[in-house]
Every structure is written in C-alpha cells, then in structure tokens.
C-alpha cells in the first residue's frame, strides 16, 4: 500500500505554514494507560505530524506491584504463586523459570519424569501465549474471528491445566524438586486429544490471516528491527529471531529435557511485524512436535526428587509408612526448619514464549530468597518501541505494539 511506504507527508504543502517543521506543528497524542490496544497498562506519548509518528515516548510502571520486594518475604514454594502473575498469558512458563533458577541455586537435579512433565507444560504454555499474542495482533488489526479461534483453543489448554492441578491459569504448579501433582491418565488423554485436533485449527487460522491481503499490507514492512539493533537492544525470543538472531535457549543452553527432542528453531530475516507473526505461528507447530515426542516417551518413575534431598514433600504413603518420610515431612512443614540454602547467587534463564526469562536469585541461608530479581524480556522489547515506530502512521502503532507481545505485568513487576 502506498501510505506505509510513501515518504512524502500526507498534508499538502499549500495547507501548511512555513514553520511546518517546528515543534509547534507536531501534535501530541496520549495513547494512555487505558486503551484497548495497549494490552493493559502501558502509556505512549506520541508526537504526530498528521498521521505520521515522529516520536514516541513510552512510559511504564502503571502495574508495578513490588514483585521483587515480595520475593524477599516469601519462601521459594510460596513465591511461585507470585511468579504466575508476571507473564499471565503463560503462567506455567514463569513457574518453570522460577524453579529452574531456585534449583540451580540449591543444586538439585530433577528426576527424568519431572523434566519431561515440565517440558510438556512449558510447551503448552508456549502455544497458549502465541495464540493470544497473534490473536491480539489479529484483533487489533480487525480480525475478530482469528482471535476467537485462538481463544477457544486456549480454553482447551485451560481445561488440560485444570484437570492437572485445579486452576485454569495462575497454576503455581511447580515446586522445589518437582511438581505438585503428577500426570494422571486423564491428563495424558486430554493432551493427546489436543494434539490431534489443534493442527486443523491452526491450519484454519493460518488460512484466515497469513495470505490475507489486508493483514499483510498492515504488517509487512512495519516496525522493522535490524539484527544489530536486536542484539544491542537486548531483544530475545520471537522478536529477536524474527530479525535474524538465531538464539534459542532451548538449543543453545539446553535445560530440562530439550536435548532429547528433535525440533527446529524458527527464524526470519526481515524483522517486521509480519515476520514476528510467522515466527510465532511456526513455533507453535514446533511445539506440537516436541509435545508429541515428549508424550510418547514419557518416562515412568517418581516425579519429585527423593526424600534424602529434603526439598520436595514426600507422598502420603511414604509419610505414613516410612520413618524417613515422616521426618522429611516434619522438617519441611515446620516453620523454623526447611531446607538448607547456600549463601550464594545464581542466575538461570529459560526460553519463555516471550524471550529469555531469567531469575537472579540470591540466597542467604534462610528459606526465602534474599533477592529475587526477574529479568523481563518485555522490558527490553518495550524500550525498542520508539525506534520501531518512527516514520510509521498511527494505525501502525497498534500493530507494532501487538507484535512485540508486551505484557504489562512482566514489564512492570
């Protein structure tokens, strides 16, 4: 379309006074914290020349709730409930990331079954996140049906999570040394049904938007992020991969059970909104591959670490029939005991759907962290926003903001 790529201003020269290029001519628009397209509380102060954005000043902090301060007062197993509320589109991924960092600090090695289970839920969370992100991009550019299809599939994933641990989202599923509930046959059956029926819906959704002339015109060439800018700006995840940065922590820094699976990293080279959309759609397909392999090869055995490690709660059978189980249960449940935490610091990152989500945990011997820092991918993506939007029109603001998948709770913590 001519408008997005045409560098000539939209107002004719005759209509403007000579001082047209001065600051007074620019119109300031507040894309306020309350706006349907800001995906909860972000604020942009846009300086417009007609329809064209000359500059954008992002402001955040409208959802800052002091997560890091809370991390200093809650134990490791209690903080997982708060970590849910960060990237609330895919809370399981946050749980996995938090306990990955804590277990690195404590030096705990998980059982194989636990690794596979955490991989499965992390991939389901990835699918859930990408469905909503692309759905929101679709919704903001006018494709309501795409959004509803995506939301219906998310309901199916919610159903799986609910059967697994009782909560639709904000599950707080992982614990130090394991998970709170093991997979039951019903959960496995539901995931299998999902794996059977989801590819067809994904094809339907692709058919709606991927070669849709309106969508392509609205997103192609809009919000281009170059590879150098992506690395310099600290981008990660689909935003960076769509610009050509081939970095995926599942392959580069493998954690959990990702080494056992055969899947590919999705990258693109153009770095615009359309590339980010395509990367996310393809990543969903790769996640389906991982899920299929994980489910087929799910190892048996215990899901929590053994009693001797004194970190995960033993099963009731062990508590009532063995002395070690009783002692372990006592040690973990009594207030002034608990497990030993080294006075050290550790950082561990996982490949969350949004990018590199890492936690820097400082232990001081007590049961709660001394400092629990969350490294939010969305913060760095939002900081990149002004350079992406310069020169584009007001309607592109919405498309770019949606494609960056900025979740305010993760941004502000």
């Amino acid at each position, binding site marked *: 379309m001519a408008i997005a790529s045409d560098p000539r201003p939209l107002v004719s020269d005759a209509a403007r006074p000579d001082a047209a290029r001065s600051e007074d001519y620019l119109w300031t628009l507040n894309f306020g914290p*309350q706006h349907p397209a800001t995906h909860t509380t972000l604020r942009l102060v846009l300086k417009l020349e007609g329809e064209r954005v000359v500059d954008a000043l992002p402001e955040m902090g409208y959802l*800052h*709730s002091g997560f890091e*301060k809370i991390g200093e007062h809650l134990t490791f197993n209690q903080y997982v409930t708060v970590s849910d*509320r960060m990237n*609330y589109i895919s809370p399981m991924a946050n749980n996995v990331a938090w306990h990955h960092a804590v277990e690195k600090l404590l030096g705990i090695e998980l059982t194989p079954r636990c690794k596979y289970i955490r991989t499965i839920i992390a991939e389901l969370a990835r699918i859930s996140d990408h469905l909503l992100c692309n759905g929101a991009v679709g919704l903001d550019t006018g494709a309501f049906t795409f959004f509803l299809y995506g939301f219906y599939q998310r*309901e199916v994933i919610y159903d799986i999570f609910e059967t697994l641990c009782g909560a*639709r*989202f904000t599950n707080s599923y992982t614990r130090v040394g394991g998970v709170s509930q093991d997979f039951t046959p019903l959960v496995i059956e539901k995931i299998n049904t999902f794996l059977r029926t989801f590819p067809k819906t994904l094809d339907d959704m692709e058919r709606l938007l991927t070669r849709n002339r309106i969508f392509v015109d609205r997103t192609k060439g809009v919000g281009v992020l170059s590879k150098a800018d992506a690395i310099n700006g600290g981008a990660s995840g689909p935003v960076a991969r769509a610009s050509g940065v081939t970095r995926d922590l599942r392959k580069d820094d493998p954690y959990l059970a990702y080494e056992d699976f055969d899947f590919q990293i999705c990258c693109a080279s153009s770095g615009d909104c359309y590339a980010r959309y395509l990367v996310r759609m393809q990543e969903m397909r790769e996640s389906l591959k991982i899920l299929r392999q994980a489910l087929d090869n799910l190892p048996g055995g215990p899901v929590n670490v053994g009693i001797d490690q004194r970190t995960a709660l033993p099963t009731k059978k062990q508590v009532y029939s063995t002395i070690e189980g009783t002692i372990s249960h006592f040690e973990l449940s009594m207030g002034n005991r608990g497990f030993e935490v080294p006075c050290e610091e550790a950082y561990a990152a996982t490949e969350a759907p949004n990018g590199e989500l890492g936690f820097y945990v400082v232990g001081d011997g007590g049961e709660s962290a001394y400092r629990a820092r969350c490294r939010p991918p969305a913060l760095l993506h939002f900081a990149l926003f002004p350079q992406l939007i310069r020169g584009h029109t007001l309607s592109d603001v919405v498309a770019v903001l949606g494609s960056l998948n900025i979740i305010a709770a993760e941004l502000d913590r």
Partner: protein
Amino acid sequence: MALELPENVVVSRLDELASWCRKNSLWPMPFATACCGIELMATGASKHDLARFGAEVFRFSPRQCDLMIVAGRVTMKMLPVLQRIWLQMHEPKWCISMGACASTGGVFDTYAVVQGIDRFIPVDMYVPGCPPRPEQLIQAIIDLQDKIQREGTISGREFDTAERQLRKRALVESAQLLTLDAARNPVVQRELAAAAHQH
C-alpha cells in the same frame, strides 16, 4: 429533574421498566490491568459468552459505557487514571471490582498496590477469586442485574419522590457504615459529635 408525583402505581412501573432496560443492556467498560483481564476476555469469548446477558459491546470509551469492570490490581500510579475514567462515565453507572486484587489488594500487600479500589471509588459488586472463573464473573453480572432491578440508580433522580430519597439515603449510609476506619465514617462521626454535644 424530580417529578412531583404522589405515590401511585404508574411511577413505580416506569421505574421498574427503566431498571429492566438498564440491567439487560449493561455495556461494560473493561478496566483490565492484569491477569483478571485475561479471564475477562475469556468471559467475553465464545466459551462463556457474556453477550448473552446483554453485555454485547465491550466499549473502551468511558463515555459510552455504564458498567466499569475493574479487573486486576490497581497501583498508585494507575489510580488517578481510574478515578478520571470513573468521573468521565455518565450516570447511571455501576462498578464491579473483579478479583482479589481490585477488591482488597489481593496477594500484593506492597508499597505500590492500592489495597482495594473501594477506598477511592464506589463499588457495587465484588467478585472474589484470583482470578475468578468466568462463571463467577457471570454470576456477579447477574447479581448486579438483580441489584439494579431492586434499587434502580443510586444517584439518578429521574423518578424521585420523597420516600425514594429517604430510601436511597439509607442505602448510601448503610454502605458508609461498612467503612471500618472510624475517622472516615461520616455516620459514626455524626453519632460521636451528637454524643459529645449532649455532654
């Protein structure tokens, strides 16, 4: 615009008719800040459809809505924005505080989160949960519809008579009595002042 009408059947029927119309077409304004916002979107999506109850259009402009659903935690940076949007909404308007964070501050008893928006905004319905299930939110909207049918509009004065004014004042004061902070409770202050006056 108060109509000087005696207590007769015609006025109460018209009042009920107006309440019935208003309750069945509540247009929500989603003030979605955090996780509850996603459950709000899920309530409006196809599996639990909020449009069945009249809330078809989720208008994001406060000038076009009558129900503000505050979904998610409200921080001190966001509260002036919330108040401004509440003031921009036209009468009659209602407010649902969805989720634990909007009702009481929830999990976040920290320096930045307002411990309950009802400290600063008049709230009609509270929905507990973290996040509340869509069915809970739908139940809240149904309960709000019952409340609207029973009470009409608290501040509206179109169908006023002296008796209705008294009833409304009693309702407002009973809500104020629930304020635990005695210093901010005007009814308690009035009683204390009256008691002090007597001595």
